[in-house]
């Protein structure tokens, strides 16, 4: 388990889909970084937003709340949001919290970007 805070949140665009690469811990300290990543992601007017958790570390309840906030923003814009790279543990947490019902969890970037696993509700 890494112990770094989320410091590097990159945003890429692939096929009209914005991919936010989350790296490090997702907790209270990640708030500003996630906000600016969100702004960068929607700047390109994407058709969907994908969260890449491959390099994410520890996600606490505050981190979950930040994802919820982002998901709410996406839904307000009618943007589908998908995710990939979650460890089985966080996948379980996304299921328990029902985030998985609103944010399709894909096995890899390819399926997440193309929406092969289906979009969220």
């Amino acid at each position, binding site marked *: 388990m890494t112990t770094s805070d989320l410091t590097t949140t990159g945003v890429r665009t692939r096929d009209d889909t914005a991919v936010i690469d989350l790296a490090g811990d997702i907790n209270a300290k990640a708030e500003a970084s996630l906000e600016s990543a969100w702004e960068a992601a929607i700047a390109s007017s994407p058709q969907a937003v994908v969260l890449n958790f491959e390099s994410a570390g520890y996600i606490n*309840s505050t981190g979950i*709340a930040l994802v919820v906030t982002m*998901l709410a923003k996406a839904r307000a814009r009618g943007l589908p949001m998908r995710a990939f790279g979650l460890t089985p543990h966080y996948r379980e*947490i996304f299921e328990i919290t029902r985030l998985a019902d*609103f944010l399709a969890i894909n096995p890899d970037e390819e399926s997440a970007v193309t929406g092969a696993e289906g979009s969220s509700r």
Partner: protein
Amino acid sequence: MTTLTGAFRRRFLGRRSVERTRDVRDADEAVHAPRDDVPAVDIGPNDPLLAYLQSASGAVDVQTLEMQSPALEAMKAAGVKLAVPLVSQGELIGVLNLGPRRSEQDYSTDDRKLLDNLAAQAAPALRVGQLVREQQAEAATRQRFEQELEVAKLIQQNFLPKQLPDLPDWQVAAYYRPAREVGGDFYDVIPISDGRIGFVIGDVTDKGVPAALVMAATRSVLRASAQRLVNPGEVLERVNEHLCPDMPEKMFVTCLYGVLEPTSGRFQFANAGHDLPYVKTATGSEELRARGMPLGLMTGMAYEEKETVLAPGDSLLLHSDGVVEAHNPDGGMFGFPRLKDAVAQYPGGHELIDRVLSDLKQHTGPDAEQEDDITMVTLTRASSSAVRTAAEAPTRQLVEFEVPSAEGNERIALERVSAIVGPLGLDEARLKRLETAVGEATMNAMEHGNKYRADLPVAVRVLTEPDQVRVQIVDQGGESPDHETETPDLEAKLAGLQRPRGWGLFLIKNMVDDAHETTDGSEHVLELIMRTDPAADESHHTQGGVDDHQ
């Protein structure tokens, strides 16, 4: 001078106690031997001679004095010629009675002057002597009193249980503190041969040695009867019959006797006029009522018998009137309602006793002398999860450490716990779940419990039992942990009807097999339980055990 001294007769006046009269005479005799034959004369308290001598300016000629006074008559008859009042600070404290001079001449003016001077100097000295005697007598009385208190205390303490029973699934706690003037409180725990346990609390009217002796007798008879008879009502009946014939007048004993069946929690009881016990239940607190007259008042009494079942988590409080009848400086009593509320509100066992004592101190004020004996006995049945662990095996504490209450430090806690618990047989997924729960619990403890105060660290304990790991997260948040109160609902959050946060407790509940909170007033403990043999109970992760009272 010797002739004069030899002729002195003293008589102390009957205004003070008889005791003092004797003391003064003794002192006088010791100083003024040898004496001759003029007999001592008593002056009655209403004799007008008293007032006359008190206001006389010097030696008084007894033979020429005319007054309706029995004492004066007696003095004249005894041949007293001259009475010299001894006055100190305006108070007549004695009289020097002189017979005729040995030369058979009358007392001269010089003689009288000499006697007056002597009286003026002797009176204060005599008064000092009297005071010293008084003080010595008082000190002796006080010492006797203190010794009696000591004896009473010894008797009492000797008859209190030396140790309390160690029952699986039950916690028995007791508190006894005598007042300075030891009252008649007592309690007892009586193991009965069939595995049941008798609990007694009682109070003998009166204080000191008499109360202590009656208490000792009551206890002995109760102990003997408890072994022979099954029903608490019959036991009290028997004790009453034994006590009645020898009970000192105006004394009696209030007493509650109950019998616990530890395996079922069944508690049968009867009450001889003692303050009603309270039971803390899941929903509040209740009085345990049963009718009966105090012991030792009259024979032929019957005692109503009742029973209740103490469920897991329930706690019973037996108490003496020293608690509810404690006064505040304005004269207000602590009272039954307040004690009943305390039982409902506080955890059971030692905690309950400590909290009630602290409330009591607040009520009476910190420096108030304890008015009466205070006795409390609690009997607490472990809650079901604790029952399971207690029944299964010994608990071993692997580690206890602290993390400062500062944002982000939950990482320290969860990583240390993970490193310790890792080798104990939790699979990867369950270890991760425990990590998340420990992280969330530590965050709550730092933020809500300790308010991120630098001086209040969060303590983390890891305990292991053969089939489970227990992690305790301890903060100083006291009675009502300030958690998120609503169950998080993602749809409501996405719709902006709930704030995005508030997932902590929800995650904790869902990550571990069981979680429950306890608090002892200042310390708040959240215990997380993770079974190391998950196959036995795989469904548990979906329903945590945290009470929803936050």
